[in-house]
C-alpha cells in the first residue's frame, strides 16, 4: 500500500486560484492578482515536483480514490486520480510550461483591461487540463476535456469586443463539439459493452479480445470515435480549422492552450487508450493517415502565411500531425516524446512571437517587421533556439523526438517516412523564413505604428518609435524554455525516454524498441536524411528571404494559382462554409426559422390569438349598448328556449 500523495491537490490549487481571482479579482490590485495566479499554478508545479521525487517508490499505476460520483446499479464512476509514467510526463509538461507561461503573461498582460479575468481563466484552464491528465476514468477525462474547451473558448474570445475574436471563440467551441460528440459516443459504447469507464477495467476487458485485423468491429468503432474526438481537440484534418482562428486570443493563450498543452490532449488520449488501438489496427492506420496528411497539409499552408502567429498555428497543426503519425504506427512513446519537446519549443516560439509583437506595438504581419535582431537580441536568440529545435537540427530537442518518429514511421511504412521527411523540410523552411523575415534585413515598420493594428492590446502610453525589448518578467520564461528546447531532447538519447514510458505502453508485441530493432546503419542514415532536409530548408529560406528578397515574389507570381491556394489555406474555410455552414445556415433560416419557428410555432400562437380576437370581435357586436338590441337578443333567446321546449314536448 503506497502512501497517499494527495494528488487531488494538483488540480484543486489552480481551481482555488481561479475562484479567488474570478470572484474577488475585480477589487484587487494587479500585483495581488498576479501573486494569486502564480502561487496557485506554482504550487501545483511544486506538488508535481514533489510527486516526481517520490515517484520511484510508488507501485504503478498508482491510483487514489477521491470521492464517489455516480452509482447506478453496477455502473460506478468515482473521482479518482491515476498516476503512471505517462501521467507524470504530462503533469510535468502542463504545470511546468504552464507556470512559465503564467509568469510571462504577467508581463504581457500588465497593461490590459480585464487582468483578473485573464488570470482567472488561465487558472481555470490549468484546473481542467490537470483534471484531464490525472483522470482515472474516461468520464472524468471528459470533464477535463470539455473544461479545457470552455477555457479555450473564454480565452480566445478574451477581447470579446472585437468581432473576429468573439467569432473565433465560437468557431473553436463549435468545431470542438463535433469532436466531443465522437468522444461521447465512444464512451457510450464502452459503457454498453464493458460496463465501466474506469481505465483499468476497460483495458482489462479489452485485453483478452482478439485483435480486429479485418473488418470493422467494436474496438475499431471505439477507436475511430475516439480519434474523432482527438481530431477535434488536437486540430487534425478535418477539424483543424479552428486552431488558426484561435490566434485571435492573447499570445500567451496561444502558447499555453493552442501549442503546449490543450491541443496535445488528443495525443494523450490516444496514447492513454493504446490498449484499444492496439486491438484495432484499422483504427490505428486511420490515425496514422490523418496524422501524416495533417502534417504535410498544414506545413504547406504554413509556408505562405504572413501573419507571424498564423505561421506558428499551422506549424502547431503540422507538429500535432507528427504526434498522431507516431501514435498511428504504435510508437506512442515517440509521440509523447515529441509532445513534450514540442511543448517546450512551440511554447517558446509563441512566447517569443508575443515578445516580437509587443516590441513592434501590436503588429503581426511579418512583412512589416524585419531587422529586429538588433532591437530585441534576447528574443532573437531564444526564438532562434526554438527554430533550430523545431527544424530538427541536432542537438536541439526537436531533432531527437522528430527523428524517433521518423524512424518508427520508416519501420512501419516508408510512405509515412517520405511524407514526414518532406514535412520536416517544409517545417525548417517556413520557420527559417519566419526568422529571416522578422529579424533580418531592414525594419519595415512605420515609425509610429498604429496601436493595436491586429492585436487590440495597443499598449497605451507607449510610444513605439523603435522596437524595444520586453521586460525581464517576459524574458526569463523565454530563456528557461530556450534551455529546455536545447536540452529537452537529451532525455531521449539511447531510448531512455521510451524505456521510462515502456511500462505504460508495453503490451507484448510492441515491446521491442525502435533503436534496438533498427540497425545502427539505418538509424544513422535516417538521421542524416532528416538533418539534410532541415539544412535544405534553412538553405532555401536563406536563399529566398535573405539573399534575394525579390525572388519569393517572382516565384509566387510564377506559381500563380497554386500560391494563391496556399495563401488562402486551400480554401478549406470557404469549402466548409459552402458545404456545411451555408446549408446549415440556410436550412436553419428557411426551414427551421421561417418554416418551423415562424410558420408553425409562432403561427399557431398568433393564429390562436387572432382567432380569439376575431370571435370576440364578432361577439362584441352583440353588446352594442343599444337597449333594444339587448331586448331583441333576450327575445330571440327566449323564443329559442321555448321552441326547444315545445319541440321536446311534441316529441
Amino acid at each position, binding site marked *: 500500500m503506497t502512501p497517499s500523495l494527495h494528488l487531488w491537490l494538483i488540480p484543486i490549487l489552480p481551481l482555488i486560484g481561479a475562484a479567488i481571482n474570478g470572484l474577488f479579482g475585480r477589487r484587487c490590485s494587479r500585483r495581488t492578482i498576479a501573486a494569486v495566479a502564480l502561487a496557485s499554478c506554482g504550487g501545483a508545479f511544486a506538488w508535481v515536483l514533489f510527486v516526481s521525487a517520490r515517484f520511484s517508490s510508488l507501485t504503478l499505476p498508482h491510483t487514489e480514490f477521491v470521492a464517489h460520483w455516480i452509482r447506478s446499479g453496477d455502473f460506478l464512476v468515482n473521482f479518482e486520480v491515476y498516476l503512471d509514467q505517462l501521467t507524470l510526463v504530462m503533469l510535468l509538461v502542463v504545470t511546468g510550461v504552464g507556470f512559465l507561461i503564467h509568469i510571462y503573461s504577467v508581463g504581457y498582460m500588465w497593461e490590459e483591461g480585464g487582468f483578473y479575468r485573464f488570470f482567472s481563466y488561465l487558472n481555470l484552464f490549468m484546473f481542467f487540463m490537470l483534471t484531464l491528465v490525472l483522470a482515472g476514468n474516461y468520464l472524468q477525462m471528459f470533464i477535463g476535456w470539455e473544461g479545457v474547451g470552455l477555457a479555450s473558448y473564454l480565452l480566445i474570445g478574451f477581447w470579446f469586443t472585437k468581432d473576429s475574436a468573439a467569432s473565433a471563440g465560437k468557431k473553436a467551441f463549435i468545431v470542438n463539439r463535433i469532436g466531443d460528440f465522437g468522444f461521447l459516443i465512444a464512451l457510450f459504447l464502452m459503457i454498453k459493452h464493458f460496463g465501466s469507464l474506469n481505465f483499468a477495467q476497460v483495458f482489462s476487458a479489452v485485453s483478452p479480445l482478439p485483435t480486429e485485423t479485418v473488418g470493422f468491429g467494436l474496438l475499431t468503432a471505439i477507436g475511430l470515435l475516439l480519434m474523432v474526438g482527438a481530431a477535434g481537440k488536437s486540430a487534425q484534418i478535418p477539424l483543424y480549422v479552428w486552431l488558426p482562428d484561435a490566434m485571435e486570443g492573447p499570445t500567451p493563450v496561444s502558447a499555453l492552450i493552442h501549442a503546449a498543452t490543450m491541443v496535445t490532449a488528443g495525443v494523450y488520449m490516444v496514447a492513454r487508450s493504446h490498449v484499444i488501438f492496439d486491438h484495432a489496427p484499422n483504427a490505428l492506420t486511420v490515425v496514422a493517415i490523418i496524422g501524416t496528411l495533417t502534417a504535410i497539409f498544414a506545413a504547406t499552408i504554413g509556408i505562405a502565411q504572413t501573419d507571424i502567429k498564423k505561421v506558428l498555428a499551422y506549424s502547431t497543426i503540422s507538429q500535432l500531425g507528427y504526434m498522431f503519425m507516431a501514435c498511428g504506427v504504435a510508437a506512442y512513446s515517440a509521440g509523447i516524446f515529441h509532445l513534450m519537446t514540442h511543448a517546450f519549443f512551440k511554447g517558446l516560439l509563441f512566447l517569443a512571437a508575443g515578445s516580437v509583437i509587443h516590441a513592434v506595438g501590436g503588429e503581426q504581419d511579418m512583412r512589416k517587421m524585419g531587422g529586429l535582431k538588433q532591437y530585441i537580441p534576447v528574443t532573437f536568440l531564444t526564438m532562434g533556439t526554438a527554430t533550430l529545435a523545431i527544424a530538427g537540427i541536432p542537438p536541439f530537442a526537436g531533432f531527437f523526438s522528430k527523428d524517433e518518429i521518423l524512424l518508427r514511421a520508416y519501420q512501419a511504412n516508408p510512405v509515412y517516412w517520405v511524407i514526414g521527411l518532406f514535412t520536416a523540410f517544409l517545417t525548417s523552411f517556413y520557420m527559417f523564413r519566419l526568422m529571416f523575415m522578422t529579424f533580418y534585413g531592414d525594419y519595415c515598420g512605420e515609425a509610429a505604428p498604429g496601436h493595436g493594428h491586429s492585436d487590440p492590446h495597443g499598449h497605451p502610453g507607449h510610444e513605439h518609435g523603435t522596437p524595444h525589448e520586453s521586460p525581464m518578467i517576459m524574458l526569463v520564461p523565454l530563456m528557461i524554455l530556450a534551455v529546455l528546447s536545447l536540452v529537452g531532447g537529451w532525455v531521449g538519447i539511447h531510448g531512455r525516454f521510451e524505456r521510462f514510458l515502456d511500462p505504460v505502453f508495453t503490451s507484448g508485441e510492441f515491446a521491442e524498441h525502435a533503436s534496438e530493432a533498427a540497425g545502427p546503419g539505418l538509424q544513422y542514415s535516417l538521421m542524416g536524411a532528416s538533418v539534410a532536409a532541415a539544412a535544405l530548408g534553412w538553405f532555401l529560406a536563406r536563399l529566398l528571404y535573405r539573399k534575394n528578397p525579390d525572388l519569393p515574389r517572382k516565384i509566387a507570381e510564377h506559381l500563380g494559382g497554386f500560391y494563391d491556394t496556399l495563401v488562402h489555406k486551400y480554401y478549406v474555410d470557404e469549402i466548409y462554409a459552402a458545404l456545411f455552414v451555408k446549408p446549415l445556415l440556410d436550412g436553419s433560416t428557411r426551414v427551421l426559422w421561417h418554416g418551423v419557428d415562424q410558420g408553425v410555432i409562432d403561427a399557431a400562437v398568433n393564429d390562436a390569438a387572432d382567432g380569439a380576437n376575431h370571435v370576440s370581435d364578432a361577439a362584441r357586436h352583440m353588446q352594442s349598448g343599444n337597449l333594444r338590441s339587448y*331586448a331583441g337578443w333576450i327575445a330571440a333567446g327566449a323564443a329559442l328556449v321555448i321552441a326547444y321546449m315545445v319541440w321536446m314536448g311534441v316529441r
Partner: protein
Amino acid sequence: MVPVSYYLILSGILFACGVIGFLIKRNIITIFMSIELMLNGVNLSFVAFAAQWQHLSGQVFVFFVMVVAAAEAAVGLAIIIAVYRTRETLNVDQVNLLKL
C-alpha cells in the same frame, strides 16, 4: 264557455305586440307602454289558467304582477321625467351617455 286556447292566443298576441313595440319603438313612453302590454298579456294567461283549473293562485299572482307594475310605473315615469329634464328628449337612442 270560451275555450282556454282563445285566451292563450290573445295573450300570445298581446305579448308579441309588446315585444315588437319594445323592439321597434324609440320613444321611452311607448316602450314603457309595451312593457305594460307584455305584463298584461301574461296576466291574461294567468287568469285564463286560473279559471280553467279553478285555482286561486293564478289570480293572486295577477294581483302581485299588477302591484309590481304599478310600482314600476311610478318609478319608471319618474325616471322618464328626470331623463326628459336633463336630455330634453325621449328618444332612447340619444340617451347613450354610458356608451363607449
